[in-house]
């Protein structure tokens, strides 16, 4: 009782005292969409430039082109060798990194906001984005490195499981494709250039800026980073995912001492109406760290795993809903039964009012922690821009969470997750039970 009273007080006080960052949004003359939060607390600037150029835009027969295109952006640009790029960035203490997934590809830059350092760093970023060279010898080297790492991944249980799971959940959809050695071998430089020209256009670029520059400076930077991008024009949509899948179970042998278990199905897209009920519900199922049901059943009560979790990966098209755990081989089947039972009960019976209240307390109460650094705010700006979420997304977030009801959670899970139609992958599968099947 006491907790509830305190909690109510806390919430009202928090919402009164806590403001979400004010997002400025405009379109650059280049056509790029720009999202900016001005903040002068720290003498630094974070920039992200993203494109609809993730692995979901690969085409059959040319898998791996998207990822190599992205990976080569900072390995040679007009007037700059790959070593020039790395050295010149280091000289001004700037950090260049990137973002690559099924939907998005892009570069991130963190730099001091001092004019000299900032301009030097932005110059490099501008050239990497707009004038990449994809040098042939560098490509040959990167292909060889990628091939070696793919071969390594083929031997590691976690990677083997991820690959089999993707195939089982997404079938022939690009979200389930996995780059094979043979794919990489045949990638040609011309394909990277073509992919770049089609997918890295200004009109599809999303520029996010966070930090110590003025609005006028931000406008100039956004334009400078996108004005010379290629024509672009490729379709920014990814083919629909088949939502209903046939149940499947793959048991893959591996000498590891643990079985790596994954279960799942296609989940939801970013703009899905059920996003919040599923998000809050999943917190209770397996997203809430030590207080989730899966954690309670598998780890806290029985000591059967160190890590057990579930999540939805909302993408442009429905990404995976996934449950995962690792447990010693001898108890893999027992754990799997337990996880399936926990999910079934969850989907059938839904969540209690008490659980929902606790979930909301955490998700709403921890909201300030989601936006307590420039880096985290930059990540939100990128996501809001890329998926064209409302500019009020951060303000709406807690409101939408607050509105979720137990009925909505139960309905959403019932409609979206069929415990009888899941893909299951067990790498390092035990032998004993198999003999009985």
């Amino acid at each position, binding site marked *: 009782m006491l907790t509830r009273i305190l909690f109510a007080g*806390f919430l009202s006080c928090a919402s009164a005292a806590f403001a979400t960052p004010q997002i400025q949004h405009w379109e650059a003359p280049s056509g790029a969409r720009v999202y900016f939060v001005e903040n002068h607390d720290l003498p630094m600037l974070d920039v992200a430039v993203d494109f609809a150029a993730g692995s979901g835009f690969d085409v059959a027969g040319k898998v791996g082109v998207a990822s190599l295109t992205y990976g080569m952006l900072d390995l040679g640009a007009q007037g700059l060798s790959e070593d020039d790029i790395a050295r010149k960035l280091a000289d*001004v203490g700037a950090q260049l990194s990137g973002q690559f997934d099924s939907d998005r590809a892009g570069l991130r830059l963190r730099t001091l906001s001092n004019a000299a350092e900032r301009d030097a760093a932005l110059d490099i970023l501008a050239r990497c984005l707009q004038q990449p060279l994809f040098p042939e010898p560098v490509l040959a080297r990167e292909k060889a*490195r990628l091939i*070696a790492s793919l071969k390594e991944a083929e031997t590691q249980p976690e990677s083997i499981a991820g690959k089999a799971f993707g195939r089982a959940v997404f079938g022939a959809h690009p979200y389930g494709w996995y780059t094979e050695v043979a794919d990489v071998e045949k990638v040609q430089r011309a394909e990277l250039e073509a992919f770049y020209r089609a997918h890295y256009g200004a009109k599809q670029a999303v520029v996010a800026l966070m930090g110590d520059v003025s609005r006028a400076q931000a406008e100039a930077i956004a334009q400078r980073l996108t004005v010379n991008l290629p024509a672009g024009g490729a379709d920014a949509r990814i083919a629909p995912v088949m939502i209903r899948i046939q149940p499947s179970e793959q048991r893959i042998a591996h000498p590891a001492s643990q079985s790596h278990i994954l279960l799942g199905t296609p989940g939801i897209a970013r703009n899905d109406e059920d996003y919040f009920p599923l998000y809050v519900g999943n917190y209770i199922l397996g997203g809430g760290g030590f207080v989730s049901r899966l954690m309670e059943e598998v*780890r806290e009560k029985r000591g059967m795993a160190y890590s057990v979790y579930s999540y939805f990966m909302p993408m442009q098209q429905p990404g995976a809903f996934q449950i995962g755990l690792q447990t010693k081989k001898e108890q893999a089947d027992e754990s799997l039964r337990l996880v399936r039972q926990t999910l079934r009960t969850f989907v059938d019976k839904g969540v209690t009012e008490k659980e929902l209240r606790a979930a909301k307390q955490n998700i709403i*109460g*921890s909201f300030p922690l989601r936006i*307590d650094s420039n880096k985290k705010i930059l990540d939100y700006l990128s996501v809001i821009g890329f998926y064209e979420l409302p500019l009020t997304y951060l303000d709406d977030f807690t409101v939408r969470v607050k509105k979720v009801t137990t009925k909505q959670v139960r309905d959403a899970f019932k409609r979206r997750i069929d415990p009888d139609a899941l893909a299951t992958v067990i790498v390092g599968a035990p032998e004993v039970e*198999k003999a009985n099947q």
Partner: protein
Amino acid sequence: MRILFVVVALLLQVPFAVQAEVHERILGNGLKVIVKEDHRAPVLVQQIWYRAGSMDELTGTTGVAHVLEHMMFKGTKEVPVGQFSKRIAAAGGRENAFTSYDYTAYFQQLHKSRLPLAMQLESDRMHNLLLTDKEFQKEIKVVMEERRWRTDDEPRSLMFEKLMAATFQEHPYQHPVIGWMNDLQNMSAADARAWYRTWYAPNNATLVIAGDVKAEEVFALAQKYYGAIPAGKLPQRKAVGESDQLGIKRITVKAPAELPYLIMAWHAPTLRDAEKDWKPYALEVLAGVLDGNSSARLNKALVREQQVAMDVGTGYDSVARGPGLFVLEATPREGKTVADVELALREQLALLVRDGVSAEELQRVKAQVMAGEVYKLDSVFYQAMQIGQMESVGLSHKDIPLMLQKLQAVTAQQVQEVAREIFNDDRLTVATLDPQPLSDKPKRAHTGAAHAH
């Protein structure tokens, strides 16, 4: 592996608002409380650091520091099992803990209004932990699963574990933080209780609070929640060391993998006196010269030009209670061997020892250090972490600005000199991963392939 520069913004023109002071007070029971104000966001972090890590363990009970860390979530009389996490979660918090060779630390991140709750819970389990046999029996299984996941089935972790065991023959760094499986299998709740009674006391801890707080208010709360806990009688810590290695050591680890892998580790000093020592600073800079960016010496030579390696990395941490290691690691490119890679690494080291480093390289590393100091301010958690670490290894958070100055003062000659001293085969252990095919296993373990469906 990146060089972890441990320094703070002082020489920088950081706006005053964020360059907040660090405040310190020691309670009557010996608990040191350190507050770093940072008012950028209405959040805070509480971290409590115990000067008890795996290096304090004894033969037969390796891993007990980490097991106790797990047990700290298993309930007190006031806060029954499971309730610690539930109450932090209900307050909108995030929490976890970590154990290292040198220390064990616990943290909660919360809205700034929730510090009393965090302190109430953390101070309660400092002296009221129940540690029942029943909870221990479950949790030890979790820890064994963690060991399988982190080490036993991870070829490179396994290799690092074996490397440490070979490198240190006297110093307890030879034992893995997670503990040997045999010791975990034989551990009892009594071992965990003994550990808790020995080390969990206010006079063996540092409390760090960072974020949107006022130092005086924090001190008052700390007094209220932690002040009444009696000081413990800490055992005298034995000085442990490692005598000189008398020649190169080589080990091979076989594990299921595709690619071989090489680690070379040289004994190296760590920081004991932040004012007088110079080698640890020179070693930090050396690591930056070798591997501070992707065109630094090792990546440029081995990965980009000679293409003998797939990747290469450098590791050195000057901040530790015990002795240090300067580590190089690399994966041979297909068609190349670990011997080829070792030779190529040795060539680079020989060049550096012979010709030294350029003014440009030195300046580049220093520019990265300075920028890193600004970027660090974007993470309240990391700033608290740095303070806790310094205090826990026997240095002071007050050394942090001094260390930055010292790093900036490192000369090319010092880098060359320390390289000459460190890169000596008599200090070196070389570990090689010998990849084993997945099918090359006892028959029973892979017959499943035939039955796969």
